[in-house]
């Protein structure tokens, strides 16, 4: 329902037929609760430019915790005015209230004058003329209170508390106390407020890549200075550009080791800013650090290039590569206890500590090729039956006469990884290491057990080099 409809005397909850009877040329639209909820979440994200702590109050409310933030705008009134003006520019009707408690803010936003700035001293006085429904009561409690003639918050507050509790349970008194600040209320913020948060707003929207890069550098400087001062380092830095039209452009960079080097963080972020579309301009930028850990101060070495701990030296490189190529493109191979050649190697992040699961490493008695094909390639082989290595084979159109050979090494499929029916004695591979006359060394296998009926199939799985 928009403002024009309200001016014609329509109200929420009215039947559609009644409304069309009153206003014959009324435009009706179906309610879309899901779309409304999604829009509310988007709005909450947008509000992160004002405060990192935004709580949803479905279906149509938002709580912003602006404790300690108002001075950034020059006062609570200026903050509220800025928020209202920005939303009004996007044709979002809004009622903004600044109050010492969430309960009071809720009450005033719905039943009080728009734009109220409530001081803690006169909270009780300003709340008492409001209707009792302003206390976020359960519907049946509200109906009962109205029937008792307790029309206003003030009238309700004047009643003896024990009577209220006896009649309505603790809920009504709790809401009353919360609104008046006698009891604290915990809000569920949409994103857990991270103390490692920095924000830069611009007087004029910025859009050129150079400006974006400079903004990224500045905000990284700011946050990293705080991390440095408190002896912490972050593992992930989430950069968000808030565009004029409300779209939020996000960029995250991860570090292999916790860090707080503003130059390094900015250097990881800046190359990826080219992909962002600043649209009509960026009005604010925020940076949050996640995975913040204690990081002791490092002594600056005088001879910088000498004697760097390997992890310390490699970490920036790993960060650069991971951020440029992707998380799964940089790894360290680690042994894994498995007979399956493909599964004998696990990929681990390069700087992760070695896992305890597979100590020792690969068995040196079982030679493995340097190049392992993802899919074994079929070869034509001539081999004496039943268990001898091939004497001749043909791979990619070229013949190879086997001069030396070792094997077989029988590898069976890991039957416990499959269902019982699929497992069988046929799923074995006899691997041979062979060398041809030119010295090429190959890793071949024969599929299945020898059976006289069907000719065995041979595959090339890797090259030793």
């Amino acid at each position: 329902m928009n403002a024009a409809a309200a001016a014609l005397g329509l109200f929420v909850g009215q039947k559609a037929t009644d409304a069309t009877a009153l206003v014959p040329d009324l435009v009706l639209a179906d309610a879309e609760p899901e779309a409304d909820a999604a829009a509310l979440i988007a709005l909450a994200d947008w509000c992160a430019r004002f405060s990192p702590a935004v709580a949803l109050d479905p279906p149509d409310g938002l709580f912003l915790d602006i404790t300690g933030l108002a001075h950034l705008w020059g006062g609570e009134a200026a903050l509220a005015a800025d928020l209202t003006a920005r939303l009004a520019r996007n044709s979002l009707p809004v009622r903004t209230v600044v109050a010492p408690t969430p309960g009071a803010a809720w009450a005033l936003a719905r039943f009080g004058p728009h734009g109220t700035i409530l001081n803690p001293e006169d909270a009780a006085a300003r709340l008492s003329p409001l209707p009792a429904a302003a206390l976020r009561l359960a519907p049946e409690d509200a109906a009962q209170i109205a029937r008792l003639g307790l029309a206003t918050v003030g009238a309700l507050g004047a009643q003896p508390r024990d009577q209220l509790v006896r009649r309505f349970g603790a809920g009504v008194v709790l809401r009353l106390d919360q609104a008046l600040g006698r009891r604290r209320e915990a809000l569920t913020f949409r994103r857990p407020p991270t103390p490692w948060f920095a924000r830069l707003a611009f007087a004029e929207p910025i859009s050129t890549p150079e400006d974006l890069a400079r903004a990224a550098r500045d905000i990284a400087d700011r946050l990293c200075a705080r991390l440095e001062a408190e002896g912490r380092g972050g593992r992930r830095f989430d950069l968000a550009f808030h565009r004029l039209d409300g779209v939020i452009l996000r960029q995250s960079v991860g570090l292999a080791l916790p860090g707080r080097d503003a130059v390094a963080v900015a250097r990881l972020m800046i190359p990826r800013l080219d992909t962002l579309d600043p649209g009509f301009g960026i009005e604010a930028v925020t940076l949050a650090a996640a995975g913040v850990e204690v990081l002791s101060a490092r002594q600056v070495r005088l001879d910088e290039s000498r004697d760097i701990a390997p992890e310390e030296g490699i970490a920036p490189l790993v960060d650069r590569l991971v951020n440029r190529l992707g998380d799964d493109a940089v790894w360290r191979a680690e042994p894994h206890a498995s007979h399956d050649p493909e599964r004998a190697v696990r990929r681990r992040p390069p700087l992760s500590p070695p896992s305890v699961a597979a100590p020792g490493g690969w068995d040196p008695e079982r030679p493995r090729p340097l190049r392992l094909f993802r899919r074994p390639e079929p070869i034509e082989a001539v081999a004496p039956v039943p268990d001898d290595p091939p004497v001749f084979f043909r791979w990619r159109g070229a013949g190879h006469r086997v001069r030396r050979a070792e094997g077989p090494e029988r590898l069976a499929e890991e039957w416990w990884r499959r269902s019982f029916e699929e497992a069988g004695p046929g799923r074995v591979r006899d691997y041979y290491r062979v060398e041809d006359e030119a010295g090429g060394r190959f890793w071949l296998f024969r599929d299945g057990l020898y059976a006289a009926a069907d000719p065995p199939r041979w595959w090339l799985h890797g090259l030793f080099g």
Partner: protein
Amino acid sequence: MSRAARLEAVRARVAVLEAGGAPARGVLSFGDVRLDGAFPAGGLPLGCWHAVGGEGLEIETAAAPGAFAAALAAPLAGRGAVVWVMRRGDLYAPGLAGLGFPADRLIQVQVRDEAQALAALEDALGAAGIAAAIGEVGSVDLTAGRRLQLACERRGATGFVIHRRPFGAGTGAAAAAPGAAAATRWIVGAAPSGPGFHAPGLGPPGLGPPRWRVELTRCRSGRPGAWILEKTDGAHPLRVVAELGDRQLETPQPLRRAG
């Protein structure tokens, strides 16, 4: 300044110029004068990059060149981490471990195209804590090679560029893989190994330690040559089995094509 001292200073400057403008970063000695003698400083120069190529199918599979580069880089892994940049993820760590290469010191990087490969290689070579970087790329032009060399000189890392073409890209004229800015250029192929374990009457004999036919086609202020080298477990990574006098006569080219 005396005349002798001035002469000495000029000699030192000439030596620096001959080394490509970079201060000497030490050498990797093979412990055999037949191989070490090919290099001006008595061993494979470190702090620069080396091109390793193959012939025939090896240009696609890069198995023997890869093994040779791993054997050369293995002694360097004690000084820092080693980075291996590749486009195809078919490098198999247990096989590296079998060549005596400490796979836990290896960071593998998979890239999507040539430009990324060269950029990642250059980045790795210039980074602190990296002793060596191995990259599999199709070709390195003069500019890219010069950039790699500058990256090597920053901290003294040693680079190995394995010339490898994507599968199916054709093998014509690939032996002439450019590497003009490289300190050395090698052509590596497999060579028949020595006798391994052999139980009489039970099929063919087993395989000995891997051998490679290694040809040094280019070496700055050095002397090209060709050798048969064998992997050893000793202090030096490779052992000279034989020195090949004339490559054209010694190389079994038709057989190689078949192999």
